């Protein structure tokens, strides 16, 4: 009985912690990849990399800088699909973005980048919006009066936040966002830190004439965009690590940090304390007669040394099992698209601290409750 209630309590605390910390990590990892030293370049005056506008000409500077391994210019826009649901539409150059993110095409093909009217849907967004290869989707921009109908050419999985987005060629996202061909939102840059330390990257920007010839490494569509461009986009740039840029945005704009999300789990734990305490209390009360007899013959310490470690260890193990159930529950909720922050599916946090903290706290409460209940059993109770 103690074990089942400790398991349930631990499951709920772990579920809450996985979801709340998962929400925080989802938000801070919107730009993160598994591609090593990736920096984000965006406008210094922008609230976030997604809302920034920078000149595409920066691409030229970066691609010709020694130590820069790959550059991906990206345009972020928000659109509404036919069902009225919002979705993030990201304009990418397929050849460039593949240097940062490994896309596993689950169905159809990936965008070629050359065709204006094609799109690839991330696995999560395809589930949420019911999109499949061959579907035509009307994207109505939220920021401008522009619209475009694209054909879903494939569904991909990247195990990043891009799974919750629709990828389109850069020029399509520029149209939806209302940007000229020579402007993008941000750039991902992969650097070789031995050749180009990250602090030197910002120095490398802005020093050269950014309106020069298109570097030979540029893909065809980027070259075409340069050809279609007129005028310059003035912008002061900042260079940040992917997660750092989002953490700074969250801290500045919403005053939220990891501690805020831990406090939600602590709140749930606080609410469960009475229930957790009740289980060992009931267990002790059921054995009050036996405990009373042992106490009356002077075995108080013996009871405590026998009961408390058993309660502590068994409830800790039950707590670990419960935490596992809590994690699996959060995973099931996430995969059923029941947990969403903004337009992104919350990926449950997988850190080992969660089961340990959850099981530890619940087992301590159970042990303390058992100790209090044992102490409260009176020696004369067995006489009645």
């Amino acid at each position, binding site marked *: 009985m103690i074990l*089942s209630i400790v398991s349930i309590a631990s499951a709920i605390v772990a579920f809450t912690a996985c979801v709340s910390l998962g929400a925080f990590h989802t938000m801070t990892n919107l730009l993160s990849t598994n591609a090593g030293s990736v920096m984000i370049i965006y406008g210094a005056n922008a609230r976030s990399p997604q809302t920034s506008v920078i000149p595409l000409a920066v691409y030229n500077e970066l691609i010709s800088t020694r130590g820069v391994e790959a550059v991906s210019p990206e345009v972020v826009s928000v659109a509404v699909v036919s069902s009225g649901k919002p979705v993030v539409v990201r304009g990418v150059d397929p050849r460039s973005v593949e240097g940062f993110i490994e896309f596993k095409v689950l169905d159809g093909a990936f965008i070629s980048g*050359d065709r204006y009217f094609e799109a690839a849907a991330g696995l999560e967004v395809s589930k949420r919006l019911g999109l499949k290869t061959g579907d035509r989707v009307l994207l109505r921009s939220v920021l401008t009066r522009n619209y475009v109908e694209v054909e879903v050419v494939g569904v991909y999985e990247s195990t990043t936040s891009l799974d919750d987005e629709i990828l389109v060629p850069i020029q399509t996202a520029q149209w939806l966002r209302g940007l000229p061909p020579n402007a993008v939102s941000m750039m991902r840059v992969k650097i070789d830190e031995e050749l180009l330390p990250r602090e030197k990257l910002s120095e490398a920007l802005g020093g050269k004439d950014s309106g020069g010839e298109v570097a030979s490494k540029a893909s065809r569509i980027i070259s075409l965009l340069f050809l279609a461009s007129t005028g310059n986009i003035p912008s002061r740039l900042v260079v940040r690590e992917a997660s750092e840029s989002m953490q700074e945005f969250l801290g500045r704009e919403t*005053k939220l940090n990891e501690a805020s999300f831990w406090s939600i789990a602590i709140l749930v734990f606080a*609410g469960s304390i009475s229930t957790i305490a009740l289980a060992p209390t009931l267990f002790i*009360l059921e054995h009050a007669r036996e405990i009373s007899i042992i106490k009356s013959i002077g075995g108080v310490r013996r009871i405590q040394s026998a009961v408390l470690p058993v309660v502590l260890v068994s409830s800790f193990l039950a707590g670990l099992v419960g935490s596992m159930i809590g994690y699996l529950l959060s995973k099931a909720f996430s995969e059923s698209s029941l947990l969403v922050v903004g337009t992104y599916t919350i990926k449950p946090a997988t850190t080992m601290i969660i089961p340990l903290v959850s099981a530890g706290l619940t087992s301590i409460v159970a042990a303390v409750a058992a100790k209090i209940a044992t102490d409260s059993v009176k020696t004369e109770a067995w006489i009645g």
Partner: protein
Amino acid sequence: MILLSLAFKDLVSEPKRLLSYILTVGSLIAVAVIPLAVGNAYIQQLMRFIPRQDYHHYLLVNSSANSLSDSIIDYKLLENTLNLKNVDYSPQLIRRCNIISGVGSAVTFLRGADLNQLYKFRGVSLRGRMPMNLSEANVGILLAERLNLSINDRVEVELSGRRHVFRVAGILRCNCPYDEEVLVQLKQAWTLIPDLNGKITLVELSGEIDPQKFAYLNIRAIPLQPASQAVTGIVESTFNSVRNWALAIFAMVFASSYFASLKMCVDSIDRVAVLRSIGFSRRRIALFLFYKALTASLISILVGISIGIVASQVIFRAASLVLSIEAYQPPTLTLSDLYLVLTLVGILSVTGSVPSIIRVARMRV
């Protein structure tokens, strides 16, 4: 009735025990209520900041069409309706086509429209001139660059199974999808696709209209730049996640009720013994225990919801201070949330108490 009054008196005669039952279930209810109430407040707060959007730009398409490409509208009927209203509109016929040049080919769209009006509306810059006859077309700059096309070049366009040869009369640049399309005059498009003569794909419309008034023509008016719709969608989907998370907490209420009522039944064993000795049947004893559990559950729900709302007010005010939000909507439960909490918690806490009641009622005392 006697049993109910007996159960109530028995419950309140031991306030310490009653408090422990209430706290056990009530604290969990409060934990689930707090995020619901705070979430509601933030939603209302955000909704106040989102101005009511008046739409002035629409896309008119066939309401039976699954996509723009499937949409076909009889233009003559619509034109008469639109002319009666004070609106600017641009009818367009859009069809998928394959364009072939000496360099290669590309799948794109042929757009037939009143190009004079369209280019003005979109701020199109045109090198060369607009198509003047059936054998001329404009192409977008990105398409022209890809196929290495210049003015006066000849291209083949495969459209609805037929091939047409066009001379590139002009190359346009607009930073829009037209940069990748072939554009001709609407009348020219009707001649090229005789099956769709007098028909269009869509109308881009600017002005105030009542979207419902187009329903009789089987036409759907889709508002453009639906910012408030998007923000509402984002806020609601996030808040629904909080609701889904609260559902998991309610599962804990069931377990909690089971243990709280078990403790209550164990505490009532002497009462059960007395009732049995004066001839109460097991059924009536079970009913007595059930009334006790029901009363405790109802008090727990009321206390839990109240604590939840008060605590959420405290949390929200503290958060408002931290976030420096001056004007705010105090947290509260909406009626639908209140029904959800009452129904779900009521059912879970009552059903959670049933197994322990049966267990104690069957005990030999």
